[in-house]
């Protein structure tokens, strides 16, 4: 193993109300693959954004040393100049351009008068692809017509064309097929020989065993333990470091009294929108009952959100399967059908999917159920509407200066409560919540937990997705663990442990084991 190339010391990064990184320390060497693991929200991506100048100095505290030299990047360009390259989950390629154009995007080979030397562009790109042993990609191919795996190869080639010495992969395999993963690993091994320092962010334990040399664990924005060589640590120990925190009495769990079966889902499938043959959901079947909270756990990209969105009718096509409510088969073609049948969904992405930003708290609250405040001919009874909104504001304890302020001026927790109010007013029988407490402070979290308990008490069937294990375990009576579009396990609250959920979620324990 080579010299230390990258050192990050005492990195602290604060977001409003949250400390995302809290004194993070680690170092990476030339010619190694350092695995950076942790639960969702542990701070991995934030750390890499600090490294790549996305969060510029001085919006963070601490020091970054590259080859012993203190670096303070004020933008991504400076990081690039220091030979740092990050390959993000969402690729930064321009689909309409060719592979060669993408690789040399910011420095075309031009003559003095600015005429592009296409011959050189394509031949340089070809030799780069050859060096990396990338097959099946021609410099003249349009990037948009390549598979995601091949696009990723192009992204790697692009990074290396700038002679990057520090390469970060942010969950690179989440969209790849097995074959593509093999090809990626072959490339990574080659780069290792060339002495590139690589950091590999992933949740997938089996992958780490194949590719990583050492591992660093992040939890709640802190590095847990030392950077450890892979052959000196077991998977169990890694998982322990990832989840090892106690569930405090943050979770006001109620006693589950499983009642009648309300929602039944059988053989639900969801096709990938662009890749033929790939399935985002495969043979998913489960039932939800009255009187208990059903939890859905799993890693990002395991199909949790896709599952609830499919049931809710959010996809225009590609869904097949059977959904029954109180034994009656439902035909859900659009969200409106789901809502009319008493199914509601608090979406994961509050700003993009949940709220109409820029519009008032009042409008956001009643937009899903205008019928309840309208008279004949669709004319809104404004007095009734305001009354109703005030009721929710006091019932859910929403802190807002008024009904007419733009909803974006509220805090994250209060925004979330506005969304919950919106759905409660549709009188749901089944309420799905996708990451209901993400990005909101602890006080608001507890209020939401209490509210969920109250709803269960009132006879609503509550189904909650969360990537935070303590939350899932602290609130739910039954837990479905998803892995790669399938339900890997259904765990009762008595048998569920963090380790077990993690093992099923990462695929290190398979269905039925």
């Amino acid at each position, binding site marked *: 193993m080579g010299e230390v190339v990258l050192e990050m010391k005492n990195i602290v990064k604060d977001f409003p109300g949250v400390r995302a990184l809290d004194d993070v320390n680690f170092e990476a060497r030339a010619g190694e693959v350092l695995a950076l693991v942790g639960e969702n929200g542990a701070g991995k991506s934030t750390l890499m954004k600090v490294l790549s100048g996305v969060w510029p100095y001085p919006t963070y505290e601490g020091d970054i040393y590259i080859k012993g030299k203190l670096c303070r990047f004020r933008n991504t360009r400076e990081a690039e100049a220091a030979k740092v390259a990050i390959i993000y989950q969402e690729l930064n390629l321009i689909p309409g351009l060719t592979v060669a154009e993408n690789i040399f995007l910011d420095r075309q080979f031009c003559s003095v008068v600015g005429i592009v030397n296409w011959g050189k562009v394509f031949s340089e790109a070809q030799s780069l692809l050859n060096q990396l042993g990338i097959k099946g990609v021609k410099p003249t191919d349009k990037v948009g017509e390549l598979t995601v795996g091949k696009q990723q190869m192009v992204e790697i080639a692009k990074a290396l064309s700038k002679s990057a010495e520090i390469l970060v992969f942010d969950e690179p395999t989440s969209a790849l097929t097995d074959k593509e993963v093999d090809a990626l690993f072959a490339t990574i091994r080659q780069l290792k020989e060339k002495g590139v320092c690589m950091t590999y962010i992933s949740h997938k334990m089996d992958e780490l065993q194949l590719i990583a040399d050492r591992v660093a664990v992040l939890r709640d924005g802190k590095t847990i333990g030392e950077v450890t060589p892979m052959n000196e640590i077991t998977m169990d120990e890694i998982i322990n470091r990832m989840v090892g925190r106690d569930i405090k009495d943050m979770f006001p769990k109620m006693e589950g009294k499983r009642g009648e079966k309300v929602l039944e889902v059988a053989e639900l499938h969801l096709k990938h929108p662009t890749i033929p043959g790939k399935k985002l959901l495969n043979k998913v079947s489960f039932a939800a009952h009255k009187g208990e909270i059903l939890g859905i756990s799993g890693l990002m990209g395991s199909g949790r959100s896709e599952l609830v969105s499919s049931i809710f009718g959010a996809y225009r096509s590609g869904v097949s399967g059977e959904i029954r409510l109180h034994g009656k088969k439902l035909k859900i073609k659009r969200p409106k059908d789901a809502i009319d049948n008493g199914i509601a969904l608090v979406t994961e992405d509050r700003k993009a*999917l949940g709220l109409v930003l*820029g519009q008032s708290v009042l409008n956001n609250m009643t937009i899903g159920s205008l019928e309840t405040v309208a008279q004949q001919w669709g004319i*809104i009874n404004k007095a009734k509407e305001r009354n109703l909104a005030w009721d929710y504001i006091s019932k859910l304890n929403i802190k807002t200066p008024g009904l007419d302020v733009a909803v974006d001026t509220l805090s994250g927790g209060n925004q979330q409560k506005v969304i919950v109010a919106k759905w409660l007013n549709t009188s749901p029988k089944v309420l799905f919540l996708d990451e209901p407490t993400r990005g909101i402070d602890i006080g608001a979290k507890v209020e939401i937990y209490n509210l969920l308990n109250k709803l269960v008490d009132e006879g609503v069937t509550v189904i909650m997705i969360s990537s935070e294990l303590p939350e899932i375990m602290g609130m739910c009576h039954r837990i479905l663990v998803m892995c790669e579009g399938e339900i890997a396990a259904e765990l009762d609250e008595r048998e569920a442990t963090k380790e077990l959920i993690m093992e099923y979620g990462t695929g290190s324990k398979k269905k039925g084991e």
Partner: protein
Amino acid sequence: MNTRTGNTNFMHQLAAFLKENGTLVALVILAVIFAFMDDAFFTPRNITNLARQTTIIGIISVGMTLVIIINGIDLSVGSIVGLAAIMVTLLMQSGMNVWLAILVTLLVAGVFIGLWNGFWIAHYNIPPFIITLGMMTIARGLALTLSNGSSVPVTDPLFPKLGGSYISPAISGIIIVAALVLFFFTLYRGIQQRKKYNITIRVQKIVASTIITAAGLGLAFWVFTDYRGIPYPVAIFTVIAAAGIFLLNNTMLGRRIYAMGGNEEAARLSGIRVYRVKLIVYSIITTLSALSGILLASRLNGASPNLGNMFELDAISAVIIGGTSFSGGVGTISGTVIGAFIIGILNNGMSLLGVPTFYQLIIKGLIIILAVWFDVLSKRKSA
């Protein structure tokens, strides 16, 4: 000391008033400038004409406001004015009853074409710019084909009255006074309701809207009782604008339109049937354009297939000057009405002053850019 704080307070209120009613202030300033430059401008006769000229674009602009709020655009409106004018005159020429001809024109040139536009836009998710650009050419082509490229005269004696007659001055006066009474009644009811539900009452806003309404109605009273009364098209435009304001503020459809413009995906996931709303909105605008075309043919006592050329630009300008955001979700019809009158005053005033048409185009273009620049600037400051 006291007077100084009083003064700054007043300045603050004035600044807030100017910011909220910038376009209205611009309208007044323009009117004052033209009034000083030409004695013929501020006369009941000229203002009556100005109002009647503005209604043609104004009616289309009401629909255009809805379309732009949902993040769309409709470029076909000008051609539909031409098509509707040709259609209604041809139908009457063939012996059809006036009212039936108008109804058929509204249904075919209006509702049907709107549904067609909306279908392509909503079903295949094609940018409205392209679909309506296509319809702009198709409708113009249809107008030229149907009329064989030449003008169509009006044969029916009743039809020209629609665009050319007036409500008598006496009845006009009564209507305007009734409008004032209605305004005070709704104001009173609004305050009562706000008190009942304990909502803060913004005194400045109430005072401002009272002054604006009283001044506007006062002007209307003077103009329309002194000359020949309210022109029919102005009355029709007023009803349409009022209906549009009511639609946006007080109905489920209005809420859905705003929500869709602000965040279409969130709106869809809240159970709004985006497809249906798009069909409705695109039908509204083409129907209003067809109505505009009918009124224009009536006033001109004949139709030419080239009627309505470039109307889409004036309509879009009116909406943008009126403060509707091109990025969707924000906008009012009252703003659009003011915007339409700004364009109307420019057209009318510059013609009175004898500014050559070529220069008029340049000035109008500059004013549109200025209005958007002002909008961007004020948004950046508040952000």
